[in-house]
């Protein structure tokens, strides 16, 4: 049993989660340390490397610069269902297994081109798999949307990796301010703003 599941069970059994609960307002939710997730520093580093292939640095920063791995770990730990999390973790392991099978070395030792080739193949396999079982929506879907206990089919594992990569990246401060456009206090609304190709989308 994973540590968080155990904690959840204890809280539900003893009601400790409820103590002091009536005095709520806008809650200040503390950051979740990596130690509260079932992922290690190595896992985060690995996720960052995989994510950088999906969303690499171009004229703008890539996934690694936004440290998406750390956020992917927290979201996978808390927002995914147990089945999703298992699938996600298996997907990460499969990347290494495929790297060894196709290129004879672990993923982290692949060249940039080899990494892109491998993940392009996995992405195509995922597209085909999802199309077949009707789970193509997953990349557009919020990572929190799956209900516990549902028997809807799980998407291809690589799609979960991609879903978390995109979500963690474009909701990050780096993604919002350096990749997309962000204005904290717009002050007015213009519904007829000129746009030219290349202008970035608003972050929110």
């Amino acid at each position, binding site marked *: 049993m994973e540590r968080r599941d155990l904690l959840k069970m204890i809280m539900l059994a003893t009601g400790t989660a409820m103590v002091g609960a009536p005095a*709520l307002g*806008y809650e200040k939710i503390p950051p979740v340390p990596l130690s509260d997730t079932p992922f290690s520093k190595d896992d985060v580093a690995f996720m960052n490397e995989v994510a950088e292939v999906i969303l690499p640095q171009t004229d703008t920063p890539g996934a690694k610069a936004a440290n998406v791995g750390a956020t992917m770990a927290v979201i996978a730990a808390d927002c995914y269902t147990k089945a999703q999390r298992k699938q996600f973790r298996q997907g990460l392991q499969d990347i290494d297994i495929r790297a060894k099978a196709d290129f004879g070395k672990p993923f982290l030792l692949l060249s940039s081109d080899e990494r892109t080739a491998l993940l392009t193949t996995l992405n195509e396999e995922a*597209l085909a798999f999802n199309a077949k079982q009707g789970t193509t929506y997953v990349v557009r879907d919020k990572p929190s949307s799956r209900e516990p206990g549902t028997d809807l089919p799980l998407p291809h594992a690589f799609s979960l990796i991609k879903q978390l990569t995109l979500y963690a990246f474009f909701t990050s401060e780096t993604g919002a301010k350096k990749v997309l456009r962000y204005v904290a206090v717009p002050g007015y609304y213009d519904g007829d703003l000129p746009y030219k190709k290349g202008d970035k989308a608003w972050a929110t």
Partner: protein
Amino acid sequence: MANNTYDAIVVGSGISGGWAAKELTEQGLKVLMLERGKNIEHVKDYHNAQKEAWDYPHRDMPTQLMKEQYPVLKRDYPLNESTLGMWASDQHNPYVEEKRFDWFRSYHVGGRSLLWGRQSYRLNKADFEANAKEGIAVDWPIRYEDLAPWYDYVERFAGISGNRDGLDVLPDGQYQPAMPLNCVEKDVAARIQKAFGGKRHLIPGRTSNMTQSKPEEGRVSCQYRSKCWHGCPYGGYFSTQSSTLPAAMKTGNLTLRPFSIVKEILYDKDRKRATGVEVIDAETNETYVFNSKIIFVNASALNSAWLLMNSATDVWEGGLGSSSGELGHNVMDHHFRVGAWAEVEGYDDKYHYGRRPTGFYVPRFRNWGDDKRDYLRGFGYQGSASRQGWRREVAELGIGGEFKDAISEPGSWQIGMTAFGEMLPEHSNRIYLNHKVTDKWGLPVLAMDVEIKENEIRMRKDMQQDAVAMFEAAGIKNVQGYEADYAPGMGIHEMGTARMGRDPKTSVLNAHNQVWDAPNVYVTDGAAMTSGSCVNPSLTYMALTARAARHAVEELKRRNI
């Protein structure tokens, strides 16, 4: 005991309770406002007002643990990190679902005024006459003209932005300039106008987000951040905290008591008057009695009915106001989650700036004028057009640098709208006390026995088909109609549980919102609604409350109550 006596007690601090407190204190009454939850101070307690997605550990998404703790709230969009704690705990505040009922509650000072949708529309003349004309339920005891000056009054103070569109179906009010339609919405509006011979209209939403500041009230116009639900540090939209509470406080006549669960209204059966309320302090569990000449019940439609049901039970088994046989009956909501969506071709050289906290509105056109359908009443649409962001179809396709740069740019324009339909008042749609289930204070809980019926089900077909037809008539291709599951309560527009009427035998409240059996008790929230119209109801509660408060003060002066 002297300090436990007030001129008036207001139960609840949300949209209508705030108005009751403001109006009564400004007319010189010493008022005690009771709120079952904690205090939330304007600006100071808006901890998340400046936060963005990256400031939340789960980027503002619900966790699986949150879903376990909020089994009802998770049924729709409100469960997230930025407003966690602003919705009542489903676990602490149980209720019984005879039929599925989604009850989204806010138990704190300000109630749902901090979390409302802010769309602010007047009922029209026909809304007040339809029950009588069609033989549905009972007649409203008032007409549009009775409420019109009070709509004027509350709109001016609350700060409503909107266009004066000159439509009988959606009477104009006292508005600040509207938040504009964007380029796509404007064109679609013009094409709909033409295609339907001027009988259907797409207009800017009328919203309590201000476009002009009110410096005298310390309120600044909307800054287009679209973070209303986090509490607005500018006071840009109407809430108890931004608007009515400071006004009431300024009089020096208001006492606000949070953590005060009103258990029952105390009733003197010889004088046929309420004498006060009994309160459980939610922090200490101690019980207090507060006395007053007037009581305003503004606990939100279902909880206001609960309070009446739990009061004067030694006189009437069903509680205060139950002599009519209608207390807790005629539950209404607005049924929705049906409409249409489409991608819009073109406008590639256009985008938007600023985050507009409203959209467009399509006023009712069914069963209006010479239109006649196989159901009664009608519906309106709320929607908007915008360009797609990074979470779009193309996200499935690629990986790599070109893919990243492509989804960093806006996608094509899309437009969508959702219908909000009127639900008829039905005696069989009811809530009642279930004494077998109690909350942590040992109080009985509500059981919900509410469903949409034939009239609503028929209307829903039009709600989808008409949305598709209107977008197609505007020249939009590949329009997708949709219908998602709807359960009563999801609209968060609960109404009708203590309806106004002309006869104490068939209604709980009279034309001034007084309980027939206790004229010094006024109920002026959604409970009072005799019918629901299809427009968002909160503005009507504000107007009813201001009107009733004036009446109460006058009756007090005349020594009638």
